[in-house]
């Protein structure tokens, strides 16, 4: 296969037809370049969306209520739906076996929070000892609220890392410091970190303390659950949807809310939402592939077109070569050899250029929903190979036709 004489002949031809070679190469290289960049960003979007959902436990389900918007069973719209401990306990009893972690939440409002002379303007929530897992919060220092704190209605508080950094920057150990909430001293027992800054701007106290100390009674603002992890994504989604629907039916019945009232009772499943996003990214990926493949096809058409012109431009040369004793296959071989060589070199150049662009620029892209765009090397490589093959096919047919032309006619071609 390695025929040095043939290579020299091809290099001569390429060297002396630079523009032609350059244009062929450009259409191949840009086709590959665009495809790789598109696929990279498709992957980047998927990565980005996956990262957005990693922040909270992916199997989490959140319940919130508001005022009703629909008339139902003789009740007027505009009623305020209030979750209570009773609801939380019933859910725990009915579906306790399905639930992994659970927590009710109370949003404590209308209090003044102080540390020394500083006033802290952060949201204060009462949560259970299992809320850490639901929120996917990592302890930076100390510990989370535990079950004993809940039982004893302890005056303990967990703060976000950002608060610790902003307010307690001069304090040696944040743990053990006291925060004053409406005149009551709360001891800091832990600092937690989250992947996103804005989720670190919260203060957590035990839910029992929140209800008893701040006159919450048995009122709840919110309930949160996670389900056990299931390996299969579709099963996980089915499990989440099933639990969500049961929860929804129970709560609507308990509070007499119309089934289609989306504001009165709202049960939100991260899994279901994730599925929706995954479906979107799936479609996006498909779209990118489609556009990319169209680009490749355009590239192939471009290569075919150039090969067609090249061969018809060289008809006379082919005639001369035949008159001088070139065998048909040696001419087809020469043209194919050149076509494959040019498409291969430019295809790999496009590949290297686009891959290194993704490698260099990719990790620095900081846009929501796009994270580390990258492309599967094998996929990219096989598209190059497909393009080379297409280049060969595109070169073969015109070459074959040109060789079939009678030498005499080929020589007359001007």
């Amino acid at each position: 296969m390695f025929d040095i004489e043939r290579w020299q002949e091809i290099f001569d031809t390429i060297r002396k037809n630079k523009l032609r070679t350059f244009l062929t190469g450009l259409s191949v290289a840009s086709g590959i370049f665009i495809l790789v960049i598109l696929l990279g960003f498709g992957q980047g979007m998927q990565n980005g969306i996956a990262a957005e959902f990693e922040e909270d436990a992916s199997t989490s389900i959140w319940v919130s209520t508001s005022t009703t918007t629909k008339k139902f069973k003789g009740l007027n719209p505009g009623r305020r739906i209030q979750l209570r401990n009773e609801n939380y306990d019933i859910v725990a009893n009915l579906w306790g076996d399905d639930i992994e972690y659970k927590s009710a939440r109370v949003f404590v409002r209308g209090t003044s929070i102080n540390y020394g002379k500083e006033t802290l303007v952060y949201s204060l929530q009462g949560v259970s000892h299992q809320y850490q897992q639901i929120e996917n919060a990592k302890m930076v220092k100390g510990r989370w609220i535990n079950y004993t704190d809940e039982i004893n209605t302890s005056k303990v508080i967990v703060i976000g890392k950002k608060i610790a950094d902003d307010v307690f920057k001069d304090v040696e150990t944040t743990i053990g410091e006291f925060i004053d909430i409406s005149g009551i001293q709360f001891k800091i027992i832990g600092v937690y970190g989250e992947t996103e800054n804005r989720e670190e701007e919260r203060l957590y106290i035990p839910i029992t303390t929140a209800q008893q100390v701040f006159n919450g009674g048995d009122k709840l603002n919110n309930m949160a659950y996670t389900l056990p992890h299931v390996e299969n994504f579709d099963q996980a989604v089915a499990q989440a949807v099933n639990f969500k629907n049961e929860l929804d039916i129970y709560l609507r019945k308990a509070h007499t809310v119309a089934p289609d009232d989306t504001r009165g009772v709202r049960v939100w499943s991260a899994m279901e939402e994730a599925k929706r996003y995954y479906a979107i990214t799936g479609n996006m990926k498909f779209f990118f592939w489609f556009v990319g493949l169209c680009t490749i096809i355009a590239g192939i058409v471009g290569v075919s077109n150039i090969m067609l012109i090249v061969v018809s431009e060289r008809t006379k040369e082919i005639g001369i070569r035949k008159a001088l004793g070139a065998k048909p296959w040696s001419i087809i071989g020469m043209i194919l050899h050149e076509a494959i060589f040019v498409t291969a070199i430019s295809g790999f150049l496009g590949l290297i250029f686009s891959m290194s662009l993704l490698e260099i620029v990719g990790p620095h892209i900081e846009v929501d929903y796009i994270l580390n765009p990258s492309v599967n090397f094998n996929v990219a490589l096989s598209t190059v190979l497909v393009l080379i093959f297409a280049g060969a096919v595109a070169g073969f047919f015109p070459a074959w036709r040109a060789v079939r032309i009678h030498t005499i006619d080929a020589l007359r071609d001007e």
Partner: protein
Amino acid sequence: MIEIKNLHKSYKMGSNSLHVLKGIDFSVEEGELVAIMGSSGSGKSTLLNILGMLDELDEGSYDLDGVPIKNLNETKAANYRNKFLGFVFQSFNLINYKNAMENVALPLYYQKMVRKERQEKALKYLDQVGLKEWATHLPSELSGGQKQRVAIARAMVGEPKVLLADEPTGALDSKTSYEVMDLIQKINDKGNTILIVTHESDIADMCKRIVHLKDGVILEDKKVEQVRASEYV
């Protein structure tokens, strides 16, 4: 060297058949310089194409140096052309992106000669046609006469048994024509067999034998006293 018996050739033109060569008997000895003359449509180019294995005969026989030329496929014809024949064309047919030396070396490429030898031999033949200094020039930088001399060097470089020239002076003025004919005569003097198709009688007179074709048959075949082109140069 060339032995043709009862050669017939016709072309299909739609439903009609055009009988171009109607029984040609013709032979050429080694070292001859033959002019094939005739008006257009006489069949002289067709004859040359058949001699050059660029076209196939319908009927009759053709032996080249004792080798029967028939039922050739493209590959075999290419092989024979490369070994037995050198071509010179009216329009030179040089490859425009190759320089003079590369053009001359091309037949040797198809003889699978290595590059260095090819180039040496090509330079030797360019020297013989007096164009050694022009070896690195592209055809576009050469005059018509120079181009034809390059073409002749290319035709001769493979050391063919027969040189076939199709109107070699057709695109040249008379002075350059005589220069080219002078070169052809010198090559012939060394014992090479040459066939020239021409319609110019002064060119034909510079050959040793003139064959007149008309309407597909040989009208006249005579030996002539050769006029040396050098007298006119």
